[in-house]
C-alpha cells in the first residue's frame, strides 16, 4: 500500500510561520457573545449533552459494581467538564478541540503511555499478574487426583466462539443437582433453572453459554486439560471430556521462607523478586511467575542477548531497505508513467489513468493475499505461466524481491496520481524556457522538473516512508515473515520490526508483552528521528528552490 492520507503534508505551515493575527480574540469574543441563540443550536446542544449524560450513567453502573472508584471519579470529572464547557459561552477553541482530543487521549495516548510503562516490566505469559495470583496458579496446577477425590459430571462451555472462545466448566453436584460455573478464577453457582441437565447429571444447555459438543470439545482437548478451577480444598480438573475431579494441591506456598514446597518430592523453590519467579537451588524456575519491574533489561536484551541481537540487526537493516525500496520504487515508477502521460499531444490520458489507478482502488488486504497465492510454489500463476517451480517465499532474496514487487504494484498508482497532480502545477514555461536555452529533455528534467517535483512531494514521500516502515499487512498477509532460519522460528528473513513485535506478543509461543513493548518504543524512536531529520531537510530545500 501507498501512504495513507496522513497529513504531515503542510510542513511549511508550522505555526508561527503563517500569518498570525494577534490581539483580536477579546473583541471577537464579545462580538460572538452577541450572536443570538438559535433553536436548532439549542436543540442540538440539549440532545448531545443528554446523550453524554446517558452514556455516563450507563458506564457508571459496571464501575460501581466492580468497585473501580478511580475510574468512576475520572468518568464523573470528564462528564462534569463537558457540561461546564458546552453550557458556558467561554473557551470557544476548546469546544472544537475536546471531542477529538477525548478519543485521542483514551485510545491513543493512554495506550502509548501504557506501552512505555510495560516496556520496563517482564509482563507476558508466566508473568501476568501479582505474586498472589502466581501462588494460586502454582498450587492449583499441582493438583493431583488422590484416592477418594470427588468426581463430578462435566460439560465444557464458552460464551464466545466454540473454536476460540474462553472455556468454562459446567459442573453438576451429583447430590444436590446444583450447577456451578468454573473458570481459572474459581467456581460460582449458576442460577437454578438456567441450565438443562440430562439424566446422569451432564449439563446440555445453559443460558448465556454455548455448550461444546463432543467434536468441538475434542478439538480443544488441550485447552480443557489445561483449565484448572481453584476451589477451597484444592482444584477441579478434567479427566477426559465429560468427568471432572477435585484433587489436592501437591505444592504449597510457605510464607515463612517465602518459598513453594512440593510435599511429594520435598523440593523447594524460593521467590526471586528481581526475576518475578520462584527459583530452586539448582536454578530451575517454576513456569508461573509474577509481573515485576525489570528496568532496562528489555532494551539491553536487544543488544546483548546473542540469540536476539544478530537476527534483530538483520531485521532492522531489511526494514530500512524495504521502506526505502517500496517508497523509492513506487515513486520512480509512478513518476515515469506520469511524465510519459503528461504531454499536450497525448490522447486517451483519461482512459490510461482510469486503468492505471485500479490497483489503488482495490481492497489491498485481498490483493496481498492474491499475490501471495500467485507466488505459490505448486499452483501459483507465476510458476504456471513461466513453467517454473521456484519456491518464491522459500529463499531469502526471492522472498524479499517478491514482497517489494507486490508493494510496487500496490503503491505506484498513488505515486502516479500525486506526481500527475504536481506536474500539472509546474508552469510549462519553465521547461520551455530551458529547452529554448538549448537544454536536452533529460537536462531540463534533471534541473527543473525533478527538483520541483521533489519539493512538492517530499512530505508525501516522508509519510509514505513512515507508513511502509511499519507496513504490517505487506508482510503478514504475504510471507508472514518467512523464510525462517532453521534455528530461529521467531525472526524470519522478510520480517519487519512490526511483524516481529506482533509475533512476540501474539504468536504461538509464550507471549512476551514487555519485550514487544520495548521494541515498539524502539520503532517509534526510529520513525520519529527519520521524520524529524527529513522534515528539517525539506524545509531547507524549500528555501533553496522557492
Amino acid at each position, binding site marked *: 500500500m501507498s501512504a*495513507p*492520507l*496522513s*497529513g*504531515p*503534508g*503542510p510542513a511549511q*505551515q*508550522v*505555526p508561527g510561520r503563517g500569518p498570525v493575527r494577534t490581539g483580536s480574540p477579546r473583541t471577537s469574543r464579545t462580538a460572538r457573545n*452577541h*450572536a443570538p441563540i438559535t433553536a436548532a*443550536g439549542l436543540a442540538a446542544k440539549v440532545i448531545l449533552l443528554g446523550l453524554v449524560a446517558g452514556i455516563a450513567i450507563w458506564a457508571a453502573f*459496571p464501575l460501581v459494581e466492580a468497585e473501580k472508584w478511580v475510574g468512576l471519579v475520572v468518568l464523573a470529572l470528564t462528564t462534569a467538564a463537558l457540561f461546564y464547557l458546552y453550557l458556558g459561552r467561554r473557551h*470557544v*477553541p476548546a469546544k472544537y*478541540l475536546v471531542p*477529538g*482530543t477525548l*478519543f*485521542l487521549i483514551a485510545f491513543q*495516548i*493512554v*495506550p*502509548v503511555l501504557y*506501552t512505555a510503562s*510495560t516496556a520496563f516490566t517482564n509482563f507476558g505469559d508466566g508473568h501476568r499478574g501479582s505474586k498472589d495470583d502466581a501462588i494460586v496458579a502454582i498450587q492449583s496446577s499441582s493438583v493431583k487426583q488422590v484416592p477418594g477425590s470427588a468426581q463430578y459430571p462435566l460439560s465444557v462451555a464458552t460464551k*464466545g*466462539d466454540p473454536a*476460540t*472462545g474462553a472455556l468454562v466448566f459446567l459442573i453438576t453436584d451429583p447430590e444436590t443437582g446444583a450447577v456451578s460455573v468454573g473458570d481459572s478464577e474459581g467456581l460460582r453457582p449458576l442460577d437454578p433453572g438456567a441450565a438443562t441437565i440430562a439424566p446422569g447429571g451432564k449439563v446440555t444447555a445453559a443460558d448465556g453459554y454455548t455448550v461444546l459438543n463432543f467434536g468441538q470439545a475434542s478439538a480443544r482437548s488441550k485447552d480443557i486439560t489445561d483449565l484448572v478451577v481453584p476451589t477451597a480444598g484444592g482444584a477441579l480438573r478434567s479427566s477426559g471430556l465429560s468427568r471432572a475431579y477435585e484433587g489436592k494441591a501437591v505444592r504449597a506456598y510457605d510464607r515463612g521462607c517465602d518459598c513453594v514446597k512440593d510435599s511429594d518430592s520435598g523440593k523447594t523453590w524460593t521467590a526471586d523478586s528481581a526475576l518475578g519467579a520462584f527459583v530452586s537451588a539448582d536454578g530451575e524456575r517454576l513456569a508461573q511467575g509474577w509481573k515485576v519491574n525489570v528496568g532496562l533489561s528489555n532494551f539491553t536484551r536487544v543488544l546483548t542477548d546473542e540469540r536476539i541481537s544478530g537476527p534483530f540487526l538483520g531485521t532492522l537493516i531489511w526494514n530500512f531497505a524495504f521502506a526505502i525500496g517500496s517508497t523509492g520504487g513506487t515513486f520512480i*515508477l509512478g513518476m515515469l508513467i506520469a511524465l510519459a502521460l503528461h*504531454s499536450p499531444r*497525448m490522447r486517451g490520458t483519461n482512459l490510461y489513468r482510469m*486503468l492505471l*489507478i485500479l490497483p489503488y482502488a*482495490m*481492497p*489491498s*488486504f*485481498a*490483493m496481498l*493475499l*492474491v499475490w501471495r*497465492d500467485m507466488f*505459490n510454489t505448486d499452483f501459483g*500463476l507465476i510458476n504456471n505461466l513461466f513453467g517454473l517451480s521456484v519456491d518464491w517465499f522459500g529463499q531469502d532474496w526471492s522472498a524479499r524481491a517478491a514482497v517489494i514487487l507486490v508493494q510496487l504494484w500496490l503503491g505506484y498508482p498513488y505515486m502516479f496520481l*500525486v506526481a500527475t497532480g504536481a506536474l500539472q502545477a509546474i508552469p510549462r514555461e519553465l521547461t520551455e524556457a530551458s529547452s529554448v536555452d538549448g537544454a536536452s529533455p533529460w537536462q531540463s528534467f534533471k534541473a527543473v522538473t525533478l527538483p520541483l517535483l521533489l519539493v*512538492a512531494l517530499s*512530505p*508525501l514521500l516522508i509519510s509514505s516512508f513512515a507508513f511502509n516502515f*511499519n507496513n504490517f499487512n505487506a508482510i*503478514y*498477509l504475504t510471507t508472514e515473515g518467512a523464510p525462517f532460519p532453521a534455528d530461529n522460528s521467531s525472526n524470519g528473513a522478510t520480517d519487519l520490526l*512490526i511483524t516481529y513485535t*506482533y509475533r512476540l*506478543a501474539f504468536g504461538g509461543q509464550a507471549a512476551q508483552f514487555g519485550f514487544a*513493548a520495548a521494541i*515498539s518504543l524502539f520503532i517509534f524512536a526510529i520513525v*520519529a528521528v527519520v521524520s524529524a531529520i527529513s522534515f528539517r531537510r525539506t524545509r531547507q530545500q524549500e528555501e533553496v528552490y522557492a
Partner: protein
Amino acid sequence: MTTLTGATVTGGANGPAAVGHNAGRRRNRWFAQVGWRHLVGVLGVLFSLFPLVFVVSAALNPLGTLSSTELVPTGGVSLENFGDLFARTEFANWFLNSLLIAGGASFASVFLSALAAYAFSRMRFQGRRVGLLSLLLIQMFPQFLAIVAIFLIFGTITDLWPAIGFNTPWGLLLLYMGGALGVNTWLMKGFFDTLPRELDESATVDGASHAQVFFRILLPLVAPILAVTGLLAFINTINEFLMASVFLTDTDAKTLAVGMRGMLQGGERNTNFGIFAAGTLLTAIPTVLVFQFLQRFIVSGLTSGAVKG
C-alpha cells in the same frame, strides 16, 4: 505550445519526392514525441491489470481452485463461486460489519478532525502551537504500535462493558476514532487555511456565531475535500487488519479483512480460492466506482494539502 510542435511536424514534409522517406521519418519522430508515451502507458496498464484479470478469472472459474485457475479462463465460466461465497461463509455479515465500522469510523474521524482543524486554522489561543506540534509527534507513533497495551486495556473494558468490548463493532469503532485527530487534522487545517478569512469575518459581523460560521459557511466550502478524505479513510479502515484481527475472533463479528484471510488459511487454501476471488470482486466494486467518480478530486485533494498548504 501545441502549435509550436505541430509546425515542426508539417515543416518536415517538404516536396513530393521525399514522401516515402518522410513517412518513415515522420513515424520515427511520432514515436520519439508521442509513441513512447503510449508504449509506457500500455506497459503500465498491463502491469496494473494482470493480477486483476487473474482475480476475475478465478472468480468465474467453475472449479474454484487456485490450481485450476489460469490467467484467461479456458474451462468455461460460471457464477457458482458467488453463490458458494454466501452459502458457505459469513460473507454478508463481514461485509455489513466492514461497512458499519469503516463507514462510521471514517465519517466520525473526518468530522472530529474538521472540528479541530477549524479551531487550529481560525482561532488563536494559548497552546495552539504546542497542540499542533504534539499532533505531529503523536501521528508518528501509529496506534497499532501500542497494540499490546490496547489489547490489555480492552480486556478490562470487555469485563466492564461487554457492549463495547472485544468481538463488537463498537469497540473497534471507538478505537479507530482514537487515531482520527492525529491522521487528518494537519491536512484539514491546510484546506481551511486556503479559504479566505474575510468570508467568516463578514459573517461574524453579520451576527453569525462561531458554530454557524463553521457549519453554514466553511463546511460546505470544503465538502468535496471532506468527501475525498473520508473516502481514503474508509479504504484505509476497510484494509486495516492488525487491530481487527486481535479484536474480532468470533466468526460473525469479523470484518472482511479478517474473515477473508481466514478463508485462505490452512488446508482450505487451494479449494477456497474461487470464492475468495469472488469476495474480492464484490468488496472492490463499490470502492472502484467511487474512486473513478472522485478521481479528479483525489488528485487535487492529495496535492493541495501538500503543495499549497
